[in-house]
């Protein structure tokens, strides 16, 4: 058997541009690995059932709920959390747009929401309101009623050409 086939308490992947190794169970939820193993507490835990999107991260360029990913599934992958995305020009634009539209209240949903927004705009730099709503449909927000968030993402789209 080739050595890369067996995942035995040594899962290697790239986290926010840095090579890391997870030494716990390959079946553990990536959510816990990121929060407890690597201190990325911007990844929030709202439900552990794939329903709320608070734990969303970007895996090889795609938005995924990290509670629905076993650590071993991330082997060899590139993971970006809000901690990593914070250092991008796209984040600056989204951050300003969210603040400007009053799209952040308690902030619990915000990291997942920002990453969802980044993925929407990367695939489709000029989305319609409907496309934005669909894109964030897996991200629950108890506070804002979503309109401010949609407004913020549309505003960011207007400003952020080429930055996603």
């Amino acid at each position, binding site marked *: *058997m*080739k050595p*890369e*086939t*067996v*995942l*035995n308490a040594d899962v290697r992947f790239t986290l926010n541009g840095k090579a890391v190794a997870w030494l716990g*169970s*390959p*079946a*553990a*939820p990536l959510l816990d690995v990121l929060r407890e193993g690597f201190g990325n507490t911007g990844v929030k835990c709202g439900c*552990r*059932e*794939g*329903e709320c*999107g608070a734990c*969303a991260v970007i*895996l090889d360029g*795609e*938005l*995924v*709920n990290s*509670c*629905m*990913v*076993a650590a*071993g*599934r991330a*082997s060899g992958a590139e993971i970006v959390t809000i901690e990593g995305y914070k250092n991008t020009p796209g984040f600056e634009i989204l951050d300003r747009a969210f603040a400007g539209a009053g799209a952040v209240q308690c902030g619990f949903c915000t990291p997942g929401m920002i990453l*969802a927004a980044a*993925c929407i705009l990367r695939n489709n730099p000029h989305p319609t309101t409907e496309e934005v709503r*669909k*894109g964030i*449909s*897996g*991200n629950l927000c108890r506070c804002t009623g979503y309109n401010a968030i949609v407004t913020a993402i549309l505003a960011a789209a207007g400003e952020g050409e080429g930055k996603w």
Partner: protein
Amino acid sequence: MVSYLPQSLSEALELLASTGAIPYGGGTDLMVEGKNDASYLFLHKIPELGVIAGDADYIRIGASCTFTRVADHPLCPGILKEAILQIAAPAIRNLGTIGGNIGNGSPKADSALIFFVTGSRLRLVSKRGERIIPIKDFYLGRRSLDLRPGELIAEVLIPKMGYDRYYYRKVGARDALAISRLSFAGIIKTQGDRIVNLATAFGAVSDVIIRREDIDAMLIGKTLAEAKTVRDNYLAAYAEAIVPIRGRVSEKYRKRVCMNLLRDFLDTMNI
């Protein structure tokens, strides 16, 4: 516990036979169970399971293709894309796979409903070889599948023909993320005025998706006008065939919704 990340199908089948690790597609069903010490066989690196291709008769979709890939792929039929785009939300569709949707054995599986109604086949592989069976034969009963030890779902084979027009409805509690409370798909192919193929399937009603070729046969071969004359008998046959299991939503309500959807399908298709 050790997990495995095979790089080829033969390696995966070897491991499946020798270790008993659990096949892991996208994990969106498995992770809900939350078994931290499970031994998984991750399937996403296996090139053979990630292919979407067409041959003369079938569109073939590899088991580890995600919902997002299927929804974006030009070869995949419209009825399948429509059903898939109503599954959960992007962050689940980027993970969830076709093989997992079938492999969970649920009558609520939304892509499986489309494979039932289109008369699709499954290619199952093991170290010993492969077999191709109609999807209907794969579901034996409540959460019981004809998946033998050491076997993986490799591909779904969707017929290219037979569904010129389709009808799909999912009646759920919420738009996104709701596991369908009830779903219905109907397809029809006509030549001139004559029905050459017609099929219906009901999801999330019974232990297994309901697909009754014997009842649908009442309408096949008839002109639309002739089909209208047996419409009442056809509906009566389904009224008898649909026996909802007990669930959170009352059986009576679900049966009524099924019959309404079936009637609406016939109306839409001019029958």
